């Protein structure tokens, strides 16, 4: 929990020394904080609402389109949970850890190179079964995974309900249900992210 303090000292520490050696002070503090900034990545197949969720979490605006595969670069933003800052990374869609297109490669490289503290696998509630194989691959890879089941509103319209707890037991990872477009479940996701990362 030192990071919590660090964050605080970043914003509130000051005084004579700081004024005089302001530049060095800021630089040193910044480095310390950046080192401890926790990072979670949003991954999943195209068109499950990753960018929409990214917007909801960070308040930044990334163009969201309702057709698959238009996020071609990695977007980064920040979100605050319980007064602590987290880096959020949005990735291009990928179907599996075995990449086919260039954009899928981008997502895999990010996972391997940057080793995020948590990987949030976003899936579409309507097509849960088709999307779980990637969850398994992420688990097999030894990555810390959280499953975020999005578009619950649409699944409910189709008469589908998901037993979240059962799914947690079956997979052995935390599961959150949500509808990012309706702003439903964002808070719970944040809670679970914090819980997971600080475990």
């Amino acid at each position: 929990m030192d990071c919590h303090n660090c964050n605080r000292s970043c914003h509130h520490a000051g005084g004579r020394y700081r004024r005089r050696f302001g530049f060095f002070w800021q630089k040193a503090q910044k480095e310390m904080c950046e080192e401890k900034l926790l990072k979670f990545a949003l991954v999943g197949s195209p068109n499950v609402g990753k960018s929409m969720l990214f917007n909801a979490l960070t308040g930044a605006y990334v163009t969201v389109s309702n057709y698959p595969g238009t996020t071609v670069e990695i977007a980064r933003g920040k979100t605050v949970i319980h007064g602590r800052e987290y880096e959020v990374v949005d990735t291009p869609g990928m179907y599996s850890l075995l990449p086919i297109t260039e954009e899928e490669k981008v997502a895999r490289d990010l996972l391997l190179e940057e080793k995020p503290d948590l990987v949030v696998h976003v899936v579409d509630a309507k097509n849960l079964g088709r999307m779980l194989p990637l969850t398994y691959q992420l688990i097999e890879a030894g990555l810390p995974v959280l499953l975020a089941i999005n578009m619950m509103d649409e699944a409910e319209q189709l008469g589908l309900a998901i037993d979240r707890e059962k799914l947690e037991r079956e997979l052995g990872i935390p599961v959150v249900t949500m509808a990012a477009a309706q702003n439903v479940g964002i808070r719970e996701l944040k809670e679970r992210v914090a819980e997971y990362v600080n475990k």
Partner: protein
Amino acid sequence: MSINKVKYPEQIEKAISEIEKLLTIDYKLTKRSVALLLLQKDEALLREIAQKEPSYEKILEVITETEKHFTEPISYIIASVRQETAFKVEREALKEEGSEKASITEILHKLTVNPITGIPIMLLILYYGVYKFVGVFGAGTLVDLIETFFEKNINPVVNQVTAQVIPWKVLQDLIANDYGIITLGIRYAVAIVLPVVTTFFLMFSILEDSGYLPRLSLLVDRAFKAIGLSGRAVIPMVLGFGCDTMATMVTRTLETNRERIIATLLLALAIPCSAQLGVILGLLSNNPGALLIWSGFMIFVFLLVGFLTAQLLPGKRAGFYMEIPPLRIPKVKNVLTKTYVRMKWYFIEILPLFILASVLIWLGKLTGLFDLIIRALEPVMLWLGLPKEAAQVFLFGFFRRDYGAAGMFDLYQRGILAGRQLVVAAITLTLFIPCIAQFSMMLKERGTKVTLAMTAFIFPFAFLMGYLVNFLLTALGVNF
């Protein structure tokens, strides 16, 4: 919580543990995962172990040995075991409570995808959404309104004030008069491009959020196969109608390099961007016949060039696999935010360029360079049956597609371009080289060699087609 893994067939599990033992370095993945990827012949990893693992040969041996136990590729078996496990888990966690609500969207979906009903729906959307709303309302009514306001209230004031404040004619021209920053650059940006782009982006956002566009991909998949692309390529193509630069980047989502090259060329050649499209629609909307010839010719060039490149370029043909999101009623707030963000982005990007263009024109006129280029272009214009004033429009087109198109709009309103000339100019300008931004994106995505080859083709091709159309229309005695 204990993490649960997928259990693979015995032979594969055995191979996994054998490979796990042979791996010595850290892969940033668990050894199990690396072993699985190797069994599936992941290229990047195979390359890596070839360099770094002392027992590389032995690992390969394990893989070939395991392959012998199965009639199907290992990757297929691994994928199907995973999928089975996934479906089993889904069945256990999912409760279905009968679904009837879906029927309306299901019917709508079928209507949009079936060619018999889908094509009329597409045409209706194009007619009311694009032609009536963007072309007639945006590029017609709104542009007229703002243009008139500029010409009556702003330009004369600016001209007068600069004439009084600045004693030098040269500096006056920089800000006011025919090609000034305010009287030309800002007027183009605000009066011509802004209303067009706004109406287009609004329409586009609605279509986008409704989920119609992926259905359009399904609908045109067959036609696209003929030109070496899959329905998937509809995404960059449709995006191209918004902004070709952005679309060129999105060609990354296509599967093969061949497909990416074809898509990039077609974007540069035959897909007009929103600003250009709006202005052209505005120009030709009083002449339905002219509009028909322009759009028919564009579709013809698009298909012809696509077909020919598909024949010429070697490589594997693309498959088609895409997620189809459900049809939704767009949320007003989302549509408005999207339109606003795109407009802002567009405006911030183009305004400086329009101002820069004014300055360059001013410099060009001052040094005489501008006149030189224009004089060199004039014979080409006459050859195309265009008035020599059009040379300047094409020169503007180098800076930005929309700048050129806006210039053409200006000529039209001054009564210099008419009838057949409108069609010829519209066709040549649409085919013509993309704007600087798109050009640099092409360089970045496709590399210098491919980009230069494309440019070398596009330049003469655009003028040749313009000449051809003029020749045909004249020979057939078509006029508007």
